[in-house]
């Protein structure tokens, strides 16, 4: 049999009807994740067409995007009536269509891409979709996971299938050992800077190499999460013992004999020797530095010690115009060092970096230190389980003692839908995934970085190197 990649194996196993020149493939979806923002119109379509949800048991919903993360906030005691109505609509839709919902205030609630893995619902070899582009996160387990729009949310609710053309594959090989202070966030920012924000369009990325193998599951999720920031359809990492050890501890992974059967199938998933990718890039992991963005897309990133690039040095007119516009928005000068740039806000959270290891990393920098005067620091755990785990370790005290806000779980300042937002002109160092204009609040300016770098900025009140604080 032809040598196949991980992507091809998962794809082949879910083809209900193969693609032809005339029609795309009908692809079966194992797990459908639903949240309040991209689902209401899809449920309306079901009602209009008198359709039911085909597999409610393969569908799981949570509230994350538009909820407040104010400490102690009560269910639906929400200042924004439109957000409250949207959340109520999700409750009504889940009740009507018999879908498991992890509502605000319940133990299972959290960011959709945090709760799937922590429940053990995200499993190797699965196909997973959600009306959210960061669905790529789940590829860390060797699942084929991608974001869809609201129309496709409706397709999956009604038929448990999506129509897809098979993507091309791009191997991103990262070998070597990451140096101390260099995290998965730095690795993925370096990958996006290398291939560009449109570099992965039409492709599924598979991350391979010794540096990727050495990552924990949480770090792998950070990497796969930002695959979409390179324009990729999905990002995947082959499952291995690290994956299986993580899953064995989750409540809803298979148990007993079912586990043994699942494990045997999972072990057959990694790409075969000699399997061909359409494209490949190689990155030396041992040469990576902590990274930070300076512009208005995630590809505009530099090593922390770098200087803002000069548009005048860019020959391509469109790229030059894009950089000029970004620097105007960010109010940064060509040649300016990023270290030392004053900041107003630090956000530690989002589906990229709000898991327990991320919080431990940030806490390791903040322990025994104080947030710089005048800087607001928001720490937003990704889920209620993460919040409780952090509190059991005393991390909440570390953050509070340092002067940071310890908040309730949700998307918070990553998408700025719920009141957690920058003021116009403010600078933030953020562990989230998008530095687009206005993403964290109209007129706000975002530097994307790792939890370590974000915590170092919190202490210094300016962009700082966490390795200096570790010394």
């Amino acid at each position, binding site marked *: 049999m032809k040598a196949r990649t991980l992507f091809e194996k998962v794809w082949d196993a879910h083809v*209900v*009807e193969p693609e032809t*020149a*005339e029609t*795309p493939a*009908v692809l*079966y979806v194992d797990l459908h994740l639903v949240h309040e*923002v*991209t689902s*209401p*119109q899809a449920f*309306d*379509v079901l009602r209009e*067409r008198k*359709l039911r949800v085909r597999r409610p048991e393969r569908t799981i919903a949570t509230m994350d995007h*538009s909820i407040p993360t104010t400490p102690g906030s009560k269910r639906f005691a929400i200042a*924004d009536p*439109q957000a409250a*109505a*949207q959340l109520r*609509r999700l409750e009504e839709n889940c009740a009507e269509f018999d879908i498991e919902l992890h509502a605000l205030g319940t133990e299972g609630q959290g960011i959709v891409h945090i709760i799937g893995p922590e429940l053990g619902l995200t499993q190797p070899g699965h196909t997973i979709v959600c*009306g*959210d*582009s960061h669905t790529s996160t789940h590829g860390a387990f060797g699942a084929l996971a991608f*974001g*869809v*729009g*609201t*129309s*496709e949310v*409706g*397709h999956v609710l*009604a*038929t*448990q*299938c999506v*129509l897809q*053309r098979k993507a091309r594959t791009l191997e991103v090989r990262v070998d070597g050992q990451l140096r101390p202070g260099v995290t998965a966030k730095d690795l993925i920012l370096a990958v996006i800077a290398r291939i560009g*924000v*449109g570099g992965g*369009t*039409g492709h599924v990325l598979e991350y391979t190499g010794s540096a990727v193998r050495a990552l924990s599951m949480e770090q792998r999720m950070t990497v796969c999460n930002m695959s*979409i*920031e390179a*324009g990729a*359809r999905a990002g995947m990492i082959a499952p291995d013992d690290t994956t299986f050890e993580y899953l064995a501890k989750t409540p809803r992974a298979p148990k007993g004999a079912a586990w043994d059967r699942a494990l045997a199938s999972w072990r057959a998933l990694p790409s075969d020797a000699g399997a061909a990718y359409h494209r490949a890039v190689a990155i030396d992991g041992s040469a990576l530095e902590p990274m930070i963005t300076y512009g208005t897309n995630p590809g505009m990133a530099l090593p922390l010690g770098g200087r803002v690039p000069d548009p005048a040095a860019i020959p391509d007119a*469109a*790229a030059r*115009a*894009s950089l000029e*516009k970004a620097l105007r928005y960010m109010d940064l000068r060509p040649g300016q060092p990023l270290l030392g740039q004053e900041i107003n806000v630090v956000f530690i959270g989002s589906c990229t970096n709000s898991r327990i290891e991320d919080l431990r990393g940030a806490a390791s920098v903040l322990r025994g230190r104080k947030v710089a005067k005048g800087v607001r620091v928001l720490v937003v755990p990704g889920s209620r389980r993460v919040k409780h785990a952090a509190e059991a370790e005393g991390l909440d005290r570390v953050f509070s003692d340092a002067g940071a806000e310890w908040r309730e779980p949700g998307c918070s300042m990553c998408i*700025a*839908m719920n009141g957690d937002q920058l003021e*116009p002109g403010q600078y933030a160092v953020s562990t989230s995934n*998008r530095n*687009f*204009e*206005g*993403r964290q609040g*109209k007129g706000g300016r975002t530097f994307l970085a790792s939890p370590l770098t974000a915590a170092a900025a919190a202490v210094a009140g300016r962009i700082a190197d966490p390795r200096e604080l570790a010394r």
Partner: protein
Amino acid sequence: MEPIRRIVARTVVLPQRDVDTDQIIPARYLKTTERTGLGQALFADWRYDKDGKPRPEFPLNQPEAQGAGVLVAGANFGCGSSREHAPWALRDFGFRAVVSSSIADIFRSNALKNGLVPVVLDAEAHQKLLASPGAQVTIDLETRTLAADGLTAPFPLDPFARHCLMNGIDELGFLVSQSRAIDAWEEAACAR
């Protein structure tokens, strides 16, 4: 959906590349539970100043943009968030096609489901259109070509997407018609 065979309209040019869906419609407008009325939020942070007044220099606010039906944008249009509110807002404003040298995957897929035709041209044809705002263009789905003064350029369009657009068919109907095959697949998967 209404069948689309040909689009004859004038262009508006937004030359920036990597226009993300947060610019097309900022997240604060996503609290709606409707699909309609989003045209007023289209490009809100670029279109209006801090007092909510239209910025005259923004291409969509210029007099010749009124009634335009085709948006010509820089490369990698529609990157970022999967929000279908982006094509909903573009359609509601009156756009029927988006032209670029590359279009992000999820946006392209969402556009097709809403009668917004994604037209990807080669670099040369794209440059010509970027340089001629207000050009009258004809986008023909039958021949998969875009024609403007002195320019005829082919563009790729998936045969299935084209069939759906030209016949006003939506993909949900097609998928629902596959239910026997889906039943069979599920039965076989259970047996494995």
